[in-house]
């Protein structure tokens, strides 16, 4: 193999405005890495993009099986896109199992690039193929290209010093090189990254060699001479980074810590798909961040309640099973009226369910998952980058109203990525709080004396002389905070706790209607369905449909104008990755006969599904109800 990586003989690439590519292989094949690097090059190149990694099983299955397939989808475009794409235009399959698990999603006529070396009898058998799909004509409706990637990788890395099992590890870079050729991505960012990551090692050399070999294989092989180019997107001017939801949520918490001047405490217990928030924060000790890997979720929230008492910006994060365990302590925080952010990165199903998959089915649990009358604010992130802002908003509400706040994210937001235009960090909201510093009623300090506007109680932190007081889970007398069994006081306090949360409605942005204000159909959504709904609505509007979209960030309380907005539309469609949970809340509150569009397949909505539902409703409106 020669060292040259560019050639003047390069054919003219076909310009396309967007493409959806899926890298699929065995969990051990490094497809997440190939996908991420492809994404990074595209980002630096200036495309808009969205990604969606898909880990199918919890544990690495034996190589070659369907259960072991790992995939990474990226959507790149020269325009402002909203989702990682419904169906790949191009699939890279590193083995028969990867082909089998993913081919069904590929658009007809799409490009299928296959590592032919992996299609031996053993692997075909493991994947459950009776005949070789590369030969039996079953892929006729696709544009199939094959390359003996293992063979070529082996040759490429010769002389770099890697040996034995290590050799084939570089084959993902071969695939990445080939794809970089196909879609005319620059190699330099990848090479830089390799150098930074692996330094001056044989592995670095091997990966670079395989990368270039893949690129050159495309360049020199007739079959790969039809290439494509996606021009940079005309995104709003600014500095961008590509970010996943968990990363952005972690940074949002740190930003809130800086905006409030309070140190961040994060007590948590690892659980998919929330663990990477803990991991991201654990790296930020220099920001004064205290992460506490607790013995379980109860201690995760327990330590955070303690830290909140001690005056920190306290947060805890988990997924559904962990939220279940936190319920009792959350109720204590509510009663003690301490600020606390509880992040729930939702996953699929009840019990252990589908731990690596997306679902929005913890909404009613977040709303009602505590004994007694225990209302709490509930807010949700809509996209990976939105998680940054939502984390700050959660902190704002928690600190201003002295209440725990539940922040809902999900497995899709957590792991998928999008370009994020870096915000002006000098203009973060001012979240500074005033700890109580002295008596608030004559000579005495009443820990439950309230701010008349927010109904928040004062926050007096241990160590402050003269404000010694005791919190607790028993019902308390308003004002003094003393234990009280008085019947009327209990009713008063119950209503007061309810009212405190209800008042937040006047302190949040009203909902904004996107699309056709005069439409008959409103699509109402929340959380990670944002991209699919917005794209679906756009598609329908392109087809002349009149339709509007409202996306909720605040679910409890609802924004003050929501009822009035809903009343403007004849039909309200609520697509959710659950069995209609927001729908129930809307029905109970506004008595609107919502139409629920439900999907519980562990997968996000496709824009096409939303668009189709919209068209159906608009066409057959009369029969539908």
């Amino acid at each position, binding site marked *: 193999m020669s060292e040259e990586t560019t050639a003047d003989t390069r054919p003219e690439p076909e310009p396309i405005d967007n493409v959806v590519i899926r890298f699929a292989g065995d969990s051990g094949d490094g497809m997440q890495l190939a996908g991420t690097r492809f994404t990074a090059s595209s980002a630096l190149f200036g495309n808009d993009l969205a990604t969606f990694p898909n880990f199918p099983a919890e544990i690495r299955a034996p190589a070659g099986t369907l259960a072991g397939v790992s995939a990474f989808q990226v959507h790149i475009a020269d325009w402002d896109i909203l989702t990682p794409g419904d169906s790949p235009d191009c699939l890279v399959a590193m083995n028969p199992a990867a082909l089998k698990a993913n081919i069904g999603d590929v658009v007809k006529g799409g490009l299928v690039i296959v590592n032919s070396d992996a299609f031996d009898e053993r692997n075909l058998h493991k994947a459950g193929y009776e005949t070789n799909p590369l030969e039996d004509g079953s892929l006729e409706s696709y544009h199939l290209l094959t390359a003996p990637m293992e063979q070529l990788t082996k040759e490429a890395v010769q002389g770099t010093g890697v040996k034995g099992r290590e050799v084939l590890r570089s084959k993902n870079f071969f695939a990445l090189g080939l794809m970089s050729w196909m879609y005319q991505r620059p190699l330099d960012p990848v090479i830089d990254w390799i150098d930074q990551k692996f330094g001056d090692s044989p592995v670095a050399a091997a990966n670079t060699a395989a990368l270039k070999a893949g690129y050159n294989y495309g360049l020199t092989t007739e079959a790969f001479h039809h290439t494509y180019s996606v021009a940079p997107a005309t995104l709003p001017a600014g500095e961008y980074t590509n970010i996943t939801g968990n990363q952005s949520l972690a940074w949002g918490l740190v930003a809130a810590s800086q905006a409030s001047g309070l140190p961040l405490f994060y007590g948590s217990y690892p659980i998919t798909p929330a663990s990477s928030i803990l991991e991201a924060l654990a790296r*930020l000790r220099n920001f004064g961040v205290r992460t506490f890997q607790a013995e379980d979720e109860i201690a995760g929230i327990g330590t955070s309640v*303690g830290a909140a*008492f001690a005056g920190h910006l306290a947060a805890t994060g988990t997924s559904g099973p962990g939220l279940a365990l936190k319920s009792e302590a959350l109720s*204590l925080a509510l009663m003690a009226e301490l600020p606390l952010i509880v992040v729930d990165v939702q996953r699929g199903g009840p019990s252990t369910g589908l731990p690596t998959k997306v679902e929005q089915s913890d909404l009613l649990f977040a709303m009602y998952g505590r004994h007694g009358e225990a209302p709490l604010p509930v807010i949700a992130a809509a996209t990976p980058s939105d998680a940054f802002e939502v984390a700050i908003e959660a902190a704002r509400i928690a600190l201003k109203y002295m209440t725990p706040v539940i922040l809902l994210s999900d497995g899709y937001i957590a792991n998928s990525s999008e370009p994020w235009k870096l915000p002006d960090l000098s203009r973060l909201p001012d979240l500074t709080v005033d700890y109580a510093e002295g008596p608030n009623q004559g000579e005495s300090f009443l820990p439950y004396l309230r701010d008349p506007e927010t109904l928040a109680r004062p926050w007096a932190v*241990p*160590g402050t002389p003269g404000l010694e007081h005791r919190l607790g889970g028993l019902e308390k007398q308003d004002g003094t905070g003393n234990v009280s069994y008085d019947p009327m006081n209990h009713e008063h306090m119950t209503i007061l706790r309810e009212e405190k949360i209800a008042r937040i409605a006047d302190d949040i942005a009203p909902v904004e209607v996107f699309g056709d204000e005069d439409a008959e159909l409103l699509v109402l959504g929340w959380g990670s369905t944002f991209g699919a709904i917005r794209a679906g609505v756009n598609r329908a509007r392109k087809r002349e449909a009149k339709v509007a979209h409202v996306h909720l960030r605040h679910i409890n309380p609802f924004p003050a104008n929501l009822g009035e907005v809903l009343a403007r539309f004849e039909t309200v469609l609520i697509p959710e990755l659950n069995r209609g949970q927001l729908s129930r809340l809307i029905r109970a509150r506004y008595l609107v006969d919502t139409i629920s569009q439900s999907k519980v397949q562990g997968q996000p909505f496709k824009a096409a599904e939303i668009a189709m539902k919209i068209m159906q409703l608009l066409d057959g409106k009369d029969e539908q109800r």
Partner: protein
Amino acid sequence: MTDTARYTRADFQTDQEVRWCPGCGDYTILASVQNFLAELDVPRENHVFISGIGCSSRFPYYMNTYGMHSIHGRAPAIASGVAAANPDLHVWVITGDGDALSIGGNHLIHALRRNINITILLFNNQIYGLTKGQYSPTSEVGKRTKTSPMGSIDWPFNPVSLALGAEASFVARTIDMDRAHTAEILTAAYEHEGAAFIEIYQNCNVFNDKAFIELTGRETRDANRIYLEHGKPIVFGKEDEKGVVVGPDGAQVVDVADVGIDRIQVHDAKAPEPAVAFALSRLSVGPHGPTPLGIFRDVSRPTYERQLADQIVQAQDRQGPGDLDQLVRSLGTWTVE
């Protein structure tokens, strides 16, 4: 402990009526703790009392310090959060045998192994007081209670053994009635850096009266209280006629006269390994017969909250204090003009 102490006991009392049954051992412990704090030269606002749920767990309401009467069994976790957030506070955990060892067992053992700087007072009355008399994880086998009308079949924990097995760096036992001894233990526990665990035998005169009578009864107490004192031979009895030896079979009670005082174990609370402390904890199963009281173990080990604080300092030294602008750029950026 000077004449000029800035506090009196009254400074640590609140305006809340103390609501334990008359005669409950909790009163005595409350007095011991309040007296102890009054003698310290530590500002009242630096004490934080965190409790779970149980009769004993109402304790914080009666302490004019910061406090939280939290939820059942979770006090060690909440206290860990307070201590980790602010290492300058002194954090106390007040808990019962049900609270600490039944529902809260896991948080207890984890707080101990982490050696986080909290002082845990376990009021062991061998019964669930607040819920009116069910057996607890320290109730003896065969005990008849509302939930064990035919006798309990649950083998009890020995809290000292459990704490030692959980890597505790400070482990002690005392008894409500013995206020002087309680004060001594509180002093040592307070001075200990890291998690300190004190089992306090506490009489519940309503649901489990006289559980500790062998240790408190005039007739029997001398014969049954083995006071452990660091650096001293472990002898007891009215005339110090009994002693403890430790050998290849563990710890045994002997007549000092039989073996000679030289063979009597000299108590070493500072021994780096808890093996001998553990052996001593096995001298009694519950408060029956000769029972060791005092400090089983008191060793020093880096504490959790200090190490956490150190990591922050180190990270800031190395990377500089956190810069948000840098952080959001740390994964690489590109610019759209």
